[in-house]
């Protein structure tokens, strides 16, 4: 606070063209009257911490007003202009006002082109434009330059309340950075909007993907990637078992493990992919199949295995077959009257069900032809 007073007095001494009859208090009173009569200004900054929807109402970007140097420099700027000449020395003093943390590069010249993203520059140019074009009624009250301490206090409070961020009136002036969520820079506003949209989408994805209790974006992305891979693998495996046809043409996947998304470790829901598609297979078919297999086995074991695979059957030792058939877990779906009951996983819908992997077992001795579970 004191700094502002002192620096302003520096400015006062520097600039000679000020009207000496008008005191500081008068100037600030005029400014404040202008401020308070213009409801739009503080309303804008108070109501709008987000993307500037009120931009259309004002010729400049007034989203952010708790920045003291902004206020000071803006006032200085405008009286620099009302003074009628481009005074270079106040601008240098304005530079001296620049606070250490400044993201605000208070530009030195009048002639700085509007190429920068800085909010203060926007303010400046806005002020400039408004004053030179003489469109805004707010500034008509501002007479000669000067600033007083009391006035600055009030300006401070209005700006703080206008900032809407809930800072105390005794906010230190070193705080030049925009508050979180209140950047005035159009680019950072766009950036914030973009981040919000991405966060929205991530939240929607979290509902789709199981195990979505991760708050970290990176780990969430990892989960999503794993889940997509898992689903694609499931489609592939299910398509292997879904070969249409009159006969049971399925291939049991060999110890497949799902994409690891289940959160219960590896082993996705692969086990379903088994069973043949015949709805009416009877013993005749089995006998024929068996004979065929026997015939093939005489020539070449490999072709026999392939034939069986094409039918969705596998060879396994009898002991294992009995073990599997007495297993207690049954595949889901009441429609399934599979005799083996299978080592297929217990169900659940979807990927949150526990894991089961299906094995095809081959053995040279003591084989039995069984439907693959």
């Amino acid at each position, binding site marked *: 606070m004191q700094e502002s007073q002192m620096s302003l007095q520096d400015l006062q001494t520097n600039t000679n063209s000020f009207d000496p009859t008008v005191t500081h208090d008068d100037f600030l009173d005029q400014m404040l009257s202008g401020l308070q009569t213009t409801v739009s200004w503080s309303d804008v900054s108070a109501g709008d911490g987000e993307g500037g929807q009120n931009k259309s109402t004002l010729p400049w970007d007034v989203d952010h007003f708790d920045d003291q140097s902004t206020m000071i420099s803006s006032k200085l700027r405008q009286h620099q202009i009302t003074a009628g000449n481009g005074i270079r020395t106040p601008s240098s003093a304005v530079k001296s006002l620049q606070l250490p943390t400044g993201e605000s590069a208070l530009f030195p010249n009048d002639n700085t082109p509007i190429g920068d993203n800085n909010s203060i520059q926007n303010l400046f140019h806005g002020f400039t434009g408004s004053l030179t074009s003489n469109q805004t009624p707010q500034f008509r009250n501002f007479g000669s330059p000067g600033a007083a301490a009391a006035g600055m206090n009030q300006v401070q409070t209005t700006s703080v309340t206008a900032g809407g961020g809930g800072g105390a009136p005794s906010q230190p002036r070193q705080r030049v950075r925009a508050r979180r969520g209140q950047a005035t820079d159009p680019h950072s506003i766009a950036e914030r909007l*973009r981040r919000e*949209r*991405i966060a929205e*989408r*991530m939240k*929607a*994805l979290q509902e*789709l*993907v199981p195990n979505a209790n991760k708050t970290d974006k*990176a780990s969430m*992305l*990892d989960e*999503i*990637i794993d*889940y*997509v*891979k898992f*689903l*694609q693998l*499931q*489609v*592939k495996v*299910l*398509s*292997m078992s*879904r*070969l*249409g*046809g009159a*006969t*049971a*043409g399925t*291939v049991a996947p060999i110890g497949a493990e799902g994409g690891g998304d289940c959160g219960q470790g590896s082993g996705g*829901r692969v086990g*379903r*992919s*088994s*069973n*043949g*598609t*015949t*709805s009416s*297979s009877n013993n005749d078919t089995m006998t024929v199949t068996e004979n065929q297999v026997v015939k093939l086995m005489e020539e070449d074991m490999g*072709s026999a295995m*392939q*034939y069986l*695979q*094409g039918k969705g059957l596998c060879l396994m030792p009898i002991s294992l077959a009995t073990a599997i058939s007495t297993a207690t877990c049954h*595949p*889901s*779906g009441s*429609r*399934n*009257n*599979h*005799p083996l009951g299978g080592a297929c996983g217990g169900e659940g*819908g*979807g*990927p949150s069900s526990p894991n089961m992997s299906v094995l095809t077992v081959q053995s040279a001795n003591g084989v039995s032809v069984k*439907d693959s579970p």
Partner: protein
Amino acid sequence: MSPPQQPSSTNPNSLKIRLTHRFLHNLNNLNKKRSNLDNTQIHRRSHRVKLAAYASMARVVGSRRAWSRAILWKIRNRKVFTRNKRVDHKTTHHHHLARSIKRRTTNHSNHKREYVDPNGNSGQEVKLRKLVPGVETMDACGLLDETADYIKCLATQVEVMRNLVDLYSTI
């Protein structure tokens, strides 16, 4: 029982119903089209079924989504390529063709690196772009959107297929 082409409703039940219809339809076509003998070419058959699954998924969603458009385009061009080149190879050839086509239009993606792309993408986003079809040139926001839709449809498709397997799994 013609499949009702309901307009863009993403209600999961209706999506499932439509997917089922379309998938069965495609499977029937598949079985009629070629001589799917019960031969030893399991891979080809399973690949065709997988293609049918993806095609039905994409067809149901239609052209609303980038991934569905990409899938449909890929499948159509794959057919063109098979006809032209008389491919009897395995499916990897198709993958190469499709991928080479895609590369012409898209930028290179780094393989399994964790650094940030020149575009500002993290390695994970790149991986995601590889997984989801048709999102190569999208921004992060659209990418996540498409991924959500893709995941939803994939999950429904998996459920449909699983139900079919259950239905037909009686021996």
